[in-house]
């Protein structure tokens, strides 16, 4: 019985957030805490030939100084994600070499941040500049300067994955569309920057961290190894997190705080400022993709060949992520029978890459959707019609793509048709024609996408040749307290997605309560929250794993409540139901037993328990999504597990005098299966779509040839404001997943994936008379002007 799941309930967490009573990382104050600042390299690539921090230590108010040499002596290297042929020691501070402008080389802990920054200015570093490497294709070449000479290359991974008879399909094709696409560097830039507080207990030799890190499972593993302290003596706590979208993690910063805290004997807090965030935390990979699409004359797409070069910057901790995840959406919603994917993961002397909203999927979708629209143009077909001819059909679900992704359910054609209807496609085409007649440049763009959710870490075996982590799982806890109240916790720290409300809805349904009765712990605390290495906030995994964990724990508690009540009432368990905070015999009016009374039995009056029943009313449960499996012998993989889908229709107008693009309308029809809370779901669609619009028109991290970031502040790295985007119009279909406990699918990345392609197609359509092909982003007014002037 679901009274609460599926309802658009306003959120429980909003009361405190609206009143300014949230508790974000920088709001946490530990007694005696010091504040850290980091000295960062001004050069993109250089040897460190001298570093003298002696004077910094003498600045009044400074309590500790840390250099790369200190870090080397006091910690172990951070283990790179991809094993390399030679060990590449990666410390939390640069030791003898810097490899991007902004790389930390030293850190200071002082009584306040201003003093710490004053002290940084007393540190003298002598650099011997080396040539920068800024372009990924240049970095591939054998004559390129190398970030790690011992490695002999800047390529961390190169492979060709072939699925199906690609050669045969190309031979049979009536034509091949060949295009090259580029994606710029951009990032989701949550409004709250990343930070951490580290506290060292010298007596226990134990550390406690407060941090807005969204991957606590991963981070605890790295901390334990680098600090040489077992996880049992580490504690990691997340407070309220001000947005994450993949960007909120940098274990090296936690290590810096930990080592400073140990030296100073006081807690040390570090919060990156916005310039550090934009220049040095993480960017989504920029890259270049060559796409060849083999097709028949009727528009059927037979095969896809992709060569993808991902620019990882100076990233040893999570490279190949952007490449690998593309296997999940490489054929998008289409029945393409053969796929070849050649991937390069290449280092350059720029900000490290990292997870971002959608990770590599926006670029993959951009390339495929652009190619489909260009194919439609070539064949004289309507872009919607071409897609409809190629979609995987609803009755083919579940459908396995050549690389091994299993699309669980969905009706892609119906999604597109609904979007066209909501958009009034025919009407807008008529208005476009009328507009053209009076000189207006109106354009309509369509893009559709699958939206994968959950990540099966076994996919890394494709790269490493061995399985270390695998599967997709999460852990949760539900507890009825001795006073009958209910508490729940999940190993996935919320970063704005409303877990405190949705988890409460789920638990309330299971236990016959209202969501107001269920207290969901804010965030993650490794001492009390159940967690796995796989725990964290990533890849849209809430509905894929977290829901199952919560349900499992709630049901275990429910069953125990029923067993206790059955024993006390001397009835069969099957005759009982939970409703309105009590357990009663079904259909029989009467008080039953409240949760409070049952809790008294479980925790206090334990002689009243059924024979063999242990005291307590708490359950921990970890849920593994059953769809994950190891990499196949044929190298197929379920890299992501559950698939939502969406169709975007975009209407733009271009000012032909200035090239300025205005988005007049943006319609999204999406299908994320069962919507656990439609209000929250719709908010996700709005927000993720605007991320995509920002990438399409405004956002770009640009570097000069010497590796200096030119768009280094919010004045130059442009985020969309309320005046830059329209009301996003949203409609939905609902095809539940057969493979998640409540039928819900992922929704967090959503619009970020197809929105850039929709805008690009709309701009191209507006400029149809000028024979323009949009192959890269962002679409700036100047670029449009050049197209108009050509």
């Amino acid at each position, binding site marked *: 019985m679901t009274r609460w799941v599926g309802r658009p309930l306003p959120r429980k967490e909003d009361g405190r957030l609206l009143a300014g009573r949230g508790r974000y990382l920088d709001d946490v104050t530990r007694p005696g805490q010091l504040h850290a600042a980091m000295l960062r390299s001004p050069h993109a690539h250089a040897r460190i030939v001298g570093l003298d921090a002696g004077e910094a230590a003498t600045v009044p108010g400074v309590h500790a100084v840390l250099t790369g040499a200190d870090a080397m002596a006091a910690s172990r290297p951070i283990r790179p994600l991809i094993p390399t042929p030679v060990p590449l020691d990666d410390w939390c501070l640069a030791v003898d070499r810097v490899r991007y402008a902004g790389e930390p080389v030293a850190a200071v802990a002082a009584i*306040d*941040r*201003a003093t710490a*920054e*004053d002290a940084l*200015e007393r540190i003298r570093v002598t650099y011997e500049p080396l040539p920068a490497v800024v372009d990924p294709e240049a970095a591939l070449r054998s004559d390129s300067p190398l970030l790690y000479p011992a490695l002999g290359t800047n390529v961390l991974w190169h492979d060709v994955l072939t699925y199906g008879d690609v050669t045969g399909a190309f031979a049979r094709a009536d034509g091949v569309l060949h295009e090259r696409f580029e994606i710029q560097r951009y990032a989701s830039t949550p409004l709250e920057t990343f930070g951490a507080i580290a506290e060292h207990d010298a007596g226990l030799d134990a550390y406690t961290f407060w941090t807005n890190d969204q991957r606590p499972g991963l981070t605890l593993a790295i901390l334990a190894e680098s600090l040489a302290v077992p996880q049992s003596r580490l504690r990691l706590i997340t407070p309220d997190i001000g947005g994450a979208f993949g960007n909120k993690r940098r274990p090296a910063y936690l290590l810096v705080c930990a080592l400073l805290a140990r030296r100073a004997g006081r807690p040390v807090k570090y919060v990156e*400022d*916005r*310039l550090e965030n934009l220049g040095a935390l993480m960017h989504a990979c920029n890259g270049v993709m060559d796409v060849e699409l083999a097709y028949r004359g009727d528009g059927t797409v037979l095969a896809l060949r992709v060569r993808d070069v991902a620019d990882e910057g100076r990233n040893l901790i999570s490279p190949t992520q952007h490449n690998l995840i593309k296997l999940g959406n490489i054929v998008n919603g289409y029945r393409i029978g053969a796929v070849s994917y050649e991937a390069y993961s290449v280092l350059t002397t720029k900000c490290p890459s990292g997870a971002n909203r959608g990770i590599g999927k926006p670029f993959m979708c951009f390339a495929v959707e652009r190619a489909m629209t260009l194919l439609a143009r070539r064949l004289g077909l309507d872009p919607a019609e071409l897609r409809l001819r190629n979609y995987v059909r609803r009755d083919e679900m579940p459908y396995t793509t050549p690389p091994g992704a299993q699309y669980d359910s969905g009706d892609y054609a119906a999604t597109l048709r609904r979007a066209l209807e909501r958009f009034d496609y025919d009407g807008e085409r008529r208005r476009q024609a009328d507009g053209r007649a009076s000189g207006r440049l109106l354009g309509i763009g369509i893009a559709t996408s699958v939206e994968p959710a959950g990540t099966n870490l076994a996919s890394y075996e494709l790269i490493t040749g061995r399985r270390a982590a695998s599967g997709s799982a999460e852990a949760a806890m539900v507890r009825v307290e001795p006073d009958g109240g209910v508490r729940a916790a999940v190993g996935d720290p919320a970063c704005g997605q409303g877990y405190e409300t949705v988890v409460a809805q789920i638990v309330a349904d299971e236990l016959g309560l209202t969501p107001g009765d269920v207290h969901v712990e804010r965030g993650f605390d490794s001492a009390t929250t159940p967690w796995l290495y796989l725990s964290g906030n990533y890849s849209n995994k809430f509905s894929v794993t977290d829901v199952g964990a919560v349900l499992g724990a709630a049901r275990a508690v429910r069953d125990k409540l029923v067993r206790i009540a059955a024993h006390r009432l001397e009835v069969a368990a099957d005759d009982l139901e939970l409703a309105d905070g009590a357990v009663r015999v079904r259909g029989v009016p009467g008080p039953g037993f409240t949760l409070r009374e049952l809790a008294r039995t479980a925790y206090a009056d334990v002689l009243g328990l059924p024979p063999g029943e242990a005291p307590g009313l708490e359950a921990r449960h970890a849920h593994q999504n059953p769809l994950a499996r190891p990499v196949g012998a044929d190298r197929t993989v379920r890299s992501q597990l559950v698939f939502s889908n969406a169709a975007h229709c975009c209407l733009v107008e271009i000012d032909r*005098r*200035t*090239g*300025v693009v205005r988005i007049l309308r943006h319609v999204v029809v999406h299908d994320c299966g069962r919507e656990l809370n439609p209000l929250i779901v719709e908010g996700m669609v709005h927000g993720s779509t605007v991320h995509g619009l920002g990438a399409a028109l*405004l956002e770009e991290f*640009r570097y000069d040839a010497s590796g200096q970031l*030119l*768009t280094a*502040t919010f*004045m*130059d790295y*442009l985020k*969309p*404001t309320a*005046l*830059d985007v329209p009301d996003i119009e949203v409609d939905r279909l609902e095809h539940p997943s057969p493979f998640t406990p409540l039928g819900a699918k992922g929704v967090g990345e959503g619009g970020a994936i197809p929105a850039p392609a929709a805008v690009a197609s709309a701009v191209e359509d507006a400029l149809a008379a000028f024979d323009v092909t949009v192959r890269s982003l962002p679409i*700036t*007014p*100047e670029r449009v*002007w*050049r197209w108009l*002037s050509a």
Partner: protein
Amino acid sequence: MKPAPFDYVRARTLDEALAALDGDSKILAGGQSLVPMLNMRLLRPARLVDINAVAGLDGVRGRPEGGLEIGALIRHTDLLVNPVVAERAPLLAAATAHVGHRAIRNRGTLGGSIAHADPAAELPAALLALDASVVVAGRSGQRRVALDDFLVGALTTALAADEVLVRIETPDARGAGWGFAEVARRPGDFAIAGVAALLRGEGRRCDQARVVAFGAHERPVRLRAAERALDGHDLSTALAASAAAQAAADCRPPDDVHATAAYRSHLVRVLTEQAVRDAVALVTR
């Protein structure tokens, strides 16, 4: 991002302010341009002289002979709603609406915008089109400087380290038509390029045309070739095109991360056309 240390003086009178200024000090008025630079440690003055408490520097007065006297400390928000400005210098109000966002406009000052002299700023350009002068106070008294002489280059003015800009004066612009147009990446951002135009009519003819481009040079620049294409000609809609054809001649726009010089020049032509067209329409009204 915390500033380097500095001393702070809160001046209660103009004389106090002037006494505190020297070669290693900066004036704190609105702070909307200054404080970010302090936070990024791009500027490291030894002393900040806060003039926000100096009385009498934020009024607006219509001059009997026409035109305005505007106190340098007037906040953009106040200038935007001031009826005397709306009546006598609507071009200035129109330009101010493009400055930043409300919270910035609540603190930012007209004098501060001029003294900061960002080449892409709206207000110095609008004032230049209005033939404004500024009044500068120093220890030895006040001097009046034509704005065209006061704006020297990018982020550089004729303001000495121990001087305070106290007043802006604009001559009579009754009957003049005005136009203002800019292109920015987002509303409220600094312009990629923009044009402010003011046209007076002498009977049916255009007289004393002022066409000023910003974001198109080291400082707001009078497009004199465009002005020459206007002066003495009949006020007609065809004027806009002929001004636009000459607009880029006096520009030397920068190449930067947001736009190339070529695009900026193009914008200046397009925006000149629009601003002049709007100004012509208002003059002949």
